[in-house]
Structures are given as C-alpha cells and as structure tokens.
C-alpha cells in the first residue's frame, strides 16, 4: 500500500464515526469504531513525525545544528521543527503514562487501607457522596463510598455494583488506557478529545447494558446514576471524571429495550476499521522507511 493510499484510508477511518449516529447502536460496535478512529489518529501523528524524521536524516540533523548559523536557515528550521515535534510527542506520551501509573498507584494504596469491607467484595472509602468505581488496572477492585452505602436503596446499590462489575468483567480499563494513550499521541488532530469522550460514553452504555443483562433493575440503575451525578455536579474535582452523556444514559435506561439500529452494517464497518488499524500499524514502519533517500533529498 502506498503512503498516499494508507493516509487516505486512515483519514476515512478517522472521520467515519463522526458521521454515524450511535444513539441506538450496539455500544460494543460503537466502542470498536471510536477506538479504531483513535488508533488511526495516533498512527497518523506518529507516522507523520516519524516520516519527517526519516526524511530529515539524523546525520543531516546534527550537521545542520553544528553548522548553524552558516547552514541555510530553512534547513535548520526544518530539522528543528521535526526534532522538536518528535521530542514533544515522546515526552507527552511518557508524561501521560507516568500520570496514569501515579493515579493507579494512589488508588491502589487507598484500596489497600479501606475503611471496611462493603457488599459483594467491595471496599468502603470515605465520603458522604455517592461514588462507586472499579478501581485499578491489574487487580481491579469495587470501591464504594460510605455515602453510597447510606444514600442508595438496595436495588440501586445492587444495580450500581453490577455496573461496576461489568466494567471489570469486560476489561474496560484497558480500553480507557488505550484511549488515553491515543489521545496524547493524536492530540494535534482536531476532534481527538471528542472521540475520547464518545468512546467513554459508549463504554458506560456498555456497562449499563451488561448490568441490565445481569438482572440489574434498569430503573434502579438510572436512579443510582442520577444520585451519583447530582452530587458530582456540585463538586468540580469529581465532575471531571468520566465522559459526557449522563442524561442520555438515564433516558436510555428509562426506555424499554429497543432493537439496535443497523447492527450488521455497523459491525461490518467496525470489522473493517479494526482491520485498517492493524494493517496501518503493521505497514507503518515499512511505509515510513520507504519515504525516500534522505541523502538525495537533503543533498551532500
């Protein structure tokens, strides 16, 4: 596949989910499509930077800096721009990863010293607000705030815990990690933040559906979401958690189950987008390295 064809296919995969409507779509299919779009965004940015660095050969890069200010300014500027872009991308990636590890370790420390043991193997943390979460990456734990244990009735608590168990069982944490890393890499492209929000929304929808399939009461889950969201909205620190669409989820839970819209067509698109990501990731090194002869391009 030529570089141009690869870029065109990647751009199509990136734009595709923005053109579709997922209100009544299967959330798993929507997660795959948004995840593929995020993966392609990351690959496009990495490919662009890597391509620039390959075109501007490292030896030429060093020589341009060594000969500055004698070397032509456009050479120095071009090399500096490519090098700075690559460095910024690498640093922001490492920084984001470090922040995730830091937050995960902080949560793990908290979970190891809980205030007590709650229902269904959960651990109790302080707080008069309604907080329920699946905490941690490698060994996720159900976390429930003391406020949730007093404010939620039996059905609400059971449904909320079923929702969190669905997050754990369906390994949503790894999708969230993937989305975060793609967000960092794909940040230069417009729409990346929106894609991450949509992906998170679909993950929450998937957990809602899974909980209801697991015999959780959908109205009780909707009620628990309302109680949790109402408290969070008054606290800016916690309101930043999660994705958009809380009201949309409650509206969906209020309705009786309706069949998914265009399931076959969307699944075919999701399969195609996934194949495109895998293909692009595998062919990226070959495509980038074959971009041209750097010596011929930069001159002796």
């Amino acid at each position, binding site marked *: 596949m030529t570089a141009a064809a690869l870029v065109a296919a990647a751009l199509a995969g990136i734009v595709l989910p923005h053109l579709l409507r997922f209100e009544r779509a299967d959330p798993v299919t929507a997660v795959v499509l948004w995840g593929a779009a995020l993966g392609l965004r990351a690959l496009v940015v990495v490919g662009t930077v890597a391509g620039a660095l390959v075109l501007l050969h490292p030896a030429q890069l060093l020589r341009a800096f060594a000969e500055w200010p004698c070397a032509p300014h456009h050479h120095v500027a071009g090399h500096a721009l490519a090098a700075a872009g690559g460095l910024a991308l690498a640093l922001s990636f490492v920084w984001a990863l470090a*922040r995730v590890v830091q937050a995960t370790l902080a949560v793990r420390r908290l979970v190891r010293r809980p205030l007590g043991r709650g229902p269904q193997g959960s651990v109790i943390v302080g707080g008069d607000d309604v907080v329920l979460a699946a905490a941690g990456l490698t060994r996720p734990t159900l976390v429930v705030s003391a406020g949730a244990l007093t404010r939620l*009735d039996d059905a609400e608590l*059971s449904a909320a815990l079923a929702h969190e168990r669905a997050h754990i069982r369906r390994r949503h944490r790894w999708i969230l990690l993937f989305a975060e890393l793609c967000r960092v890499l794909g940040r230069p492209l417009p729409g990346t933040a929106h894609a991450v929000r949509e992906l998170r929304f679909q993950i929450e929808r998937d957990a809602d559906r899974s909980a209801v399939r697991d015999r959780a009461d959908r109205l009780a889950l909707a009620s628990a979401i309302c109680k949790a969201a109402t408290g969070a909205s008054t606290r800016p620190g916690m309101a930043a958690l*999660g994705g958009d669409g809380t009201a949309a989820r409650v*509206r969906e839970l209020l309705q009786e189950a309706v069949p998914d819209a265009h399931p076959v067509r969307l699944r075919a698109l999701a399969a195609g987008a996934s194949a495109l990501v895998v293909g692009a990731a595998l062919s990226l090194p070959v495509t980038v390295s074959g971009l041209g002869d750097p010596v011929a391009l930069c001159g002796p």
Partner: protein
Amino acid sequence: MTEVTPLQGELQTQIMAAIWRLQDGTVEQVRQALPPHHQGAYNTVQTVLNRLAERGLLSRRREGHVIVYAPRLSEAEYLSRSMEHTLRGASSEARQVALAQLIGALPRSEAAELGRLAEEVAAERMR
C-alpha cells in the same frame, strides 16, 4: 425483586446520624434518637440497621437479650472523601483510567435535565 422504598436512602442517612450521636445503641434507642418524622415502626428501623450492618457500616453485638449496633467508621471518616483526596493531584484523564466510574462528567447544561429525569425515574419506580 427488592421492594422499592424511595425514602430508604434518607432513613439510612438519618439512622447513621443517630448512631454517631449515640456511639452505639439498640433498635429502640436508635428509633428514639431519630427525628419525629423518621420514627417509623420498630421493625423498619431494625431492618435498616441490619441492612447497614450487612453493608459494612455498622457492627452488631449481642448484650443479653438485645442486639447493640455500633458504627464501624466515624463520622469524620464518613465525611472524609478519601477518593477525592487521594486523586487530588491527578489529571482528569489519569483519574478516568484509574477509575471506571458509575457516572460521567455532568456538563452544566445536563444538570437541569438530570433533575427532571430523576423525578421521572422516581415516578416510574413507584408504579
């Protein structure tokens, strides 16, 4: 399915407040410590106390013929918001990866709509 009691959460909160004031107490002592409009039947208070014990918020011990309930965590611990405190320095993106939560962000535009939806949900649950 569990019987829907919309005020269950409110009664649980009141009972926890009463238990903290008393330090510990029997069902009748807790019932007497509740505000007048929450002083329901003995059985109701006992059910809620047992539920709170099963959820890990209260401990139970037998003293003679009666069961005495005591809080497992102090009021200060209850109010501590330890999760929020722990993640105070973390970016919102890192929090989202570390915690898959029940709810998402709630834009201000959604707050009003969610209030209306909460009423609708409560009405549906009462049916």
